[in-house]
């Protein structure tokens, strides 16, 4: 998988170092040196440092990490837990796997920092079950860390015990949702829990739990080594630091690209990937995973890549999964595939999600097959508000928000299918679209 930095290289510093995934290679490059400073600080000071950095969750929600840590009750006689969210299921996202494969010790160091700051003794690393190679690499690093006294009993002589347990998921996107992950870790179906109570208070095994994304934790060593202020000096406004962006779709060079927040979205994509593949025209950009509302080409060129700007543009940074659609990509087909995904992944607990996602999928599919009516397009638009803010978790929102945006911004493509004389009969060639058909739009 290709990795490059456009500007500041921070998380991906060691991705191209062949032996950085070993403890020897990691330590040679300065790995684990933050621990000396760490253990000399008070845990509250560490939390303050992380708050100062402005680090936000890199899994999709963008919640300030230091603030999340501070929700954990200080005095409790229950054990506290860390759940590392390595489920990476949001379509378009493939960056946490690079950390597990190429820089697993950075994650371990980040885990140690978090456990020390919050008073946690056991970290469960929930990795999606399909990630065979990342799991093998990470488990190898964990074994090395134990052997070196960096994990286990009395870490580095501090008297603290920190355990890391690698826990494999088994094929459910919903286990990337923090309470779905917790339920799955407890040995049940990954069905999210209503919040409140929040995991920081009642989490896994009924105990206070921090759930953090892999990349969030992997940023901690740099923050400890260079200071929270130095991290906050990168990026822009409340979007501090850098992030790994997974860029894929119809671009010349798909891959993982790191940059500071605050760059122009399309400039960044072009610089990183070489722009639209085969010199085609840009049609649309999905900036933050399949759950993110779509941006038109003009919107993508105008917007800045940071949490506030993308939110103001009606979309989101999400998991940083950027997908590029070119002039030949059928938006209706794209939405159909995304809706199929959510219908398949809905856990089934609440009616608006389990019925709503399947309904949306069937409607879009029918339109794309040429059997839809104009009323179906309006129906899609009217179903979406009934799925927003009505459910136990936000999977329903993740399906409804994009659906509404695709129809709103590319309505002409949906209408073309409805108004066409006949449905397209021929095979769709490589590229996933019918170029001849698309040319009529």
């Amino acid at each position, binding site marked *: 998988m290709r990795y490059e930095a456009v500007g500041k290289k921070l998380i991906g510093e060691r991705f191209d170092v062949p032996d950085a995934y070993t403890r020897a290679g990691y330590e040679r490059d300065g790995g684990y040196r933050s621990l000396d400073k760490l253990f000399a600080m008070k845990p509250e000071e560490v939390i303050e440092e992380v708050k100062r950095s402005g680090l936000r969750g890199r899994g999709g929600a963008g919640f300030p990490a230091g603030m999340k840590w501070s929700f954990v009750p200080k005095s409790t006689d229950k054990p506290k837990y860390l759940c590392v969210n390595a489920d990476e299921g949001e379509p378009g996202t493939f960056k946490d796997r690079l950390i597990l494969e190429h820089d697993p010790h950075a994650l371990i160091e980040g885990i140690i920092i978090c456990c020390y700051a919050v008073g946690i003794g056991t970290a469960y690393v929930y990795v999606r079950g399909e990630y065979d190679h990342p799991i093998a690499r990470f488990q190898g690093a964990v074994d090395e860390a134990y052997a070196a006294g960096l994990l286990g009993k009395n870490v580095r002589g501090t008297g603290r015990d920190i355990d890391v347990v690698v826990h494999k998921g088994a094929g459910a996107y919903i286990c990337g949702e923090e309470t779905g992950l917790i339920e799955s870790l407890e040995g049940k179906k990954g069905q999210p829990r*209503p919040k409140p109570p929040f995991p920081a208070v009642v989490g896994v095994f009924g105990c206070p739990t921090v759930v953090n994304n892999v990349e969030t934790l992997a940023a901690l060593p740099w923050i400890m080594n260079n200071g929270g202020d130095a991290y906050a000096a990168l990026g822009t406004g409340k979007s501090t630091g850098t992030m790994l962006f997974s860029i894929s779709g119809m671009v010349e060079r798909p891959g993982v690209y790191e940059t500071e927040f605050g760059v122009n979205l399309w400039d960044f994509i072009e610089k990183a990937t070489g722009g639209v593949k085969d010199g085609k025209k840009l049609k649309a950009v999905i900036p933050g995973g399949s759950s993110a509302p779509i941006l038109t080409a003009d919107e993508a060129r105008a917007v800045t890549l940071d949490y506030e700007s993308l939110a103001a543009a009606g979309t989101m940074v999400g998991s940083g999964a950027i997908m590029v659609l070119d002039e030949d990509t059928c938006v209706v087909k794209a939405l159909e595939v995304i809706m199929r995904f959510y219908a398949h992944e809905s856990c089934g607990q609440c009616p608006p999600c389990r019925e*709503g996602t399947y309904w949306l999928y069937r409607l879009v599919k029918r339109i794309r097959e040429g059997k839809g009516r104009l009323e179906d397009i309006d129906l899609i638009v009217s179903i979406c508000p*009934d799925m927003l803010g009505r459910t136990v978790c936000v999977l329903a929102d993740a399906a409804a928000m994009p659906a509404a945006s695709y129809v709103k911004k590319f309505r002409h493509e949906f209408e073309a299918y409805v108004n066409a004389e006949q449905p397209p009969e021929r095979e769709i060639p490589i590229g996933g679209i019918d170029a001849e058909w698309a040319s009529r739009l």
Partner: protein
Amino acid sequence: MSVKITINGMPVEAPEGALLIDVCRDNGIDIPHFCYHPGLGPDGNCRMCQVEFVSERGGRLAVSCKAVVAEGMQVLTHSESAKRARASVEEMLLLNHPLDCPICDKAGECTLQNYYMEHDLQPSRQNFTRVKKGKAIDLGPTMVLDQERCVLCDRCVRFLRDVAGDEQLYIAGRGHDAFISAFPGQEVTSAYSLNTVDLCPVGALTSKDFRFATPTWYIRNTDSVCTTCARGCNMQIQVMEERIVRMRPRHNPEVNGYWACDEGRLDYKFVNEGRVEQPLVRREGRALEASFEEALAEWRRILGYAPAGRAEGPAPVEAAMIASAHATLEELYLLKKLAARTGASFHVARHLQDGEDDRLLRRADRHPNARGAELLGLPVIDLRGEHAPEVSSLASAVRVLVGFHRRVSPAATALAANAAKLIVIDACQSALTERADLVIPGLTFAEKDGLVVNFGGRVQRLKSAVRGRRESEWRLIDALLASLDAGARAASVAQVRAEIVEQVPAFSGASLADVGRHGVQLAGAAVS
């Protein structure tokens, strides 16, 4: 401790720690819900109970089943957005719900139907073929499952797991394809399985016993009590055209919570069949039908009194009377009076084998009124087994057996066999009625007004659900007493109850006149 909240602009004082949905209900506002049940707790998955919470940041929808009341909470239960949310949940549930209403048992008592009328009433926007799942799946001895009707509220799963302790159902799969199932190849065998049919808000789980029995709107309900064991779970007896079609538990937090066991609720068939219809007199091997007056006269004759007219003193013939611990307080009290008046011995017998005591509802003692007999000061003998030593010491010239019903133990049969003359008062035909010299039809628990006392000292009321075509036992005994004393007959069962309160120390001060739907606890009468 209470908190002050506002519901629809109305100030309400709510108990601290209470759930908002309960507080609304207690203030006359029924919030619709599928997955919540007070006996199971909230789940939060159906989303039907959403209400609008108002704060300075505006309104926000959230489920009321999980909201613990907090000081200053402001709630709108019927705002436009709350109503829209409910209508939408209802629409989503109806999308793939099969149009089974004409053949579905739940029609008329279906939450989905009712909520459509109350909260939706929009034309369907669904024009796809509905998702197909299994129909009429045999889940075991008591239940049938129609998976397409299921709204996945999870109540049945939670009940079996958390209340009955028999985790036998689960939700398989995920998303719109999810469905309820038992473990493959397994059946639902829980002794409490039919509570899931009560809990199911739709017709997904149906009782084999009730399936296709009757449309629900023909049913007439009566509040009564189960008599299959000593707990006396509160029941609703449901009757159509003078036949019992179903029994369902009523909520009583002091006795059975919201639940009943399968055994008890299914124990009504004998009411509809195998009955003693008419009094029978057997002489010289021939059985003759008789009227009640003739039966009464025969009873006096067997006891050695002259057929008519005032009888003086105790009976010339020594008799032993044994009543089943099924008999009501009124029957036992009057029999005790009769025994005293005629000089007969009177015992109350346990004659049904002990059943399972499962630490949930079922008690080992299968008699509904053994405690009542004890409180009336009557000796209780054990006829549950093969032999009963006490029996041999009883008078054998005449034996009167009352209310032994259908399952007659060997000891009870011996009781009858050793009698020179046998009088049996019973609702059901049995070996006893075959042998008796005088048979007088009695009533089942479903046909009489009577009081029974459960193991915990709670007086509960049987109420007539089916019109009995026979006289109640207590009237009969009372008539016999009157004929012996020339005293007045009791005008009503209330009068008998008043006499019990007056005459029996254990019931002194008890409000037997006012037992009500939930019974009355006798102070200091609970047994271990």
